[in-house]
């Protein structure tokens, strides 16, 4: 899979300047780090700019870099259907992780963000319907965080789970249905 190397990063850097960080190219994909407050603006720019046209959102995922700080990351993979370029946007997030939702830019972001919320507890502000998607509604904790045991916590339904403290930040884990 080869990406046309002619993605011109100059207009992107010119427009956002110091606010974003150019992380170079990783295995054929351009990588930018964007602060969470800029993410929606950055996505709109990439989508609407006539030279770039990143109109297809491939994927949004959460990453937990425990025990490093900043601990969380939201990673966006975009694709430009007219230009056939890919781009990766990384959004480093503190604890508790919070980032504006891009559901306004692409409707497909809806479920990706719900998944990242479910698995990592990343709160996407402005998301129309931020519920758990895989785990059941009363579930506590965020299972893909690095400090969540692989077999879960021991309870009456899960005798093989790990003994231990309750999941991190149970207040965040409660149901978030409006």
């Amino acid at each position, binding site marked *: 899979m080869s990406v046309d190397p002619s993605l011109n990063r100059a207009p992107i850097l010119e427009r956002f300047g110091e606010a974003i960080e150019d992380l170079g190219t*990783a295995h054929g994909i351009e990588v930018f780090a964007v602060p969470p407050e800029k993410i929606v603006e950055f996505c709109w720019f990439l989508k609407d700019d006539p030279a770039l046209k990143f109109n297809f959102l491939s994927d949004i995922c959460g990453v937990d870099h425990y025990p490093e700080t900043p601990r969380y990351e939201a990673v966006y993979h975009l694709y430009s259907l007219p230009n056939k370029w890919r781009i990766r946007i990384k959004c480093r997030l503190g604890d508790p992780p919070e980032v504006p939702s891009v559901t306004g830019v692409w409707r497909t972001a809806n479920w990706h963000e719900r998944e990242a919320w479910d698995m990592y507890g990343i709160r996407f502000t402005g998301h129309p319907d931020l519920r758990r998607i895989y785990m059941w509604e009363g579930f506590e904790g965020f299972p893909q965080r690095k400090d969540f045991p692989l077999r879960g916590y021991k309870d009456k339904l899960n005798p093989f789970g790990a003994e231990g403290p309750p999941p991190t930040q149970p207040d965040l884990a409660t149901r978030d249905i409006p």
Partner: protein
Amino acid sequence: MTEVTELMRPEGEALKTREVLLNLGPQHPSTHGVLRLVLELDGEYVERVDPHVGYLHRGTEKLAESFTYTQIFPLTDRLDYLCPPSNNLAFALAVEKLLGIEAPIRAQYIRVLMAELARISGHLLITGALPMDLGAMTALLYVMREREMIMDLLEMITGARMHTSFCRVGGVREDLPDGFLPKIREFCDIFPSRIRDYERLLEDNRVFLNRTEGIGVISAEDAIDLGLSGPNLRASGVDWDIRRDEPYEIYDRLDFTVITRDEGDCYARWRCRVDEMRESIRIIEQCLAQMPEGPFQIDMPTIAFPLDKERVHCSMEALIQHFDLSAYGFNVPAGEVYSAIEAPKGELGFYIISDGSPKPFRMKVRAPSFVNLQALFGVTNARYLADMIAVLGSLDPVMAEVDK
């Protein structure tokens, strides 16, 4: 009689209907697995649909973090279980990119051949399952006959019918077996006429056409906005196929047509897949014609088992290599990679973060079915409940891939 009517319809008031909340699934034959749809119904009309997924959630991504790279292959099998070779291929390509290696040419041909067999197998199922959802059972029985042939071919290569786990990082597990070529040639000869059979069965079938044509139309803009990929996107007129646009393996050496339709309705989505099967047969025939002799796996002791298995029994170094790779795995350089292929359902991407150890730090699967299923929201003109079933069937989600 008049009394009854007056009871039902009090004077001056229209007939009152109540909104009904209906649970469709998770155990329902039309939902292709354990999908639960919460429907708000106004009579026969669907006012709102809320898909609840997760009944099949196995935590593939979390599990992968505690598995070595070779051990993850069986996990990828179980994503889209109709076409495991594609999933294996997608994962292998991602890891190979991180390692900076490429499989030998023969292995690439074998992988592509199997991926295309898998594509046919996956598309066959929806070719028969969509009419079945709409009440026509016959087609499903016919496609199962041909699917069985593919199963036999896969069993011949891998020893397994469904969960093949045949790819390895840097190649495939074994070479093609003796007697395989005549079998697959026979399949290639028979299959196009079988596709004609399905078409004859359904193409001019008034009931099937009425239930699919103009139903669940998704415009090109909507399809992109909703993140549809694969045949679902191409059926809306967007000409995008990763095999052609970002060629991986040996797809740039092959000649095939990317099938698109402009209608964007259920029939177009079904039709796209039927036509893609023909292209897959063409690809397989080209693979067979072009496939060179050579090793089926990279010769790299740090990554792959010894090519000659006999050496494990008589050479100390080969034994250590075999043991080390089985027990410890191999280190993958730190870095991040996103690699996508054109799986039968759409863009199947693996995003892998490696920290230099033999296990991935993070593996994210961009599952096409997960994204495609979401498009149920976006389908506005399928208003009858029965049409919703047609749309769901034509989007062709595999729940194992949706739930990961």
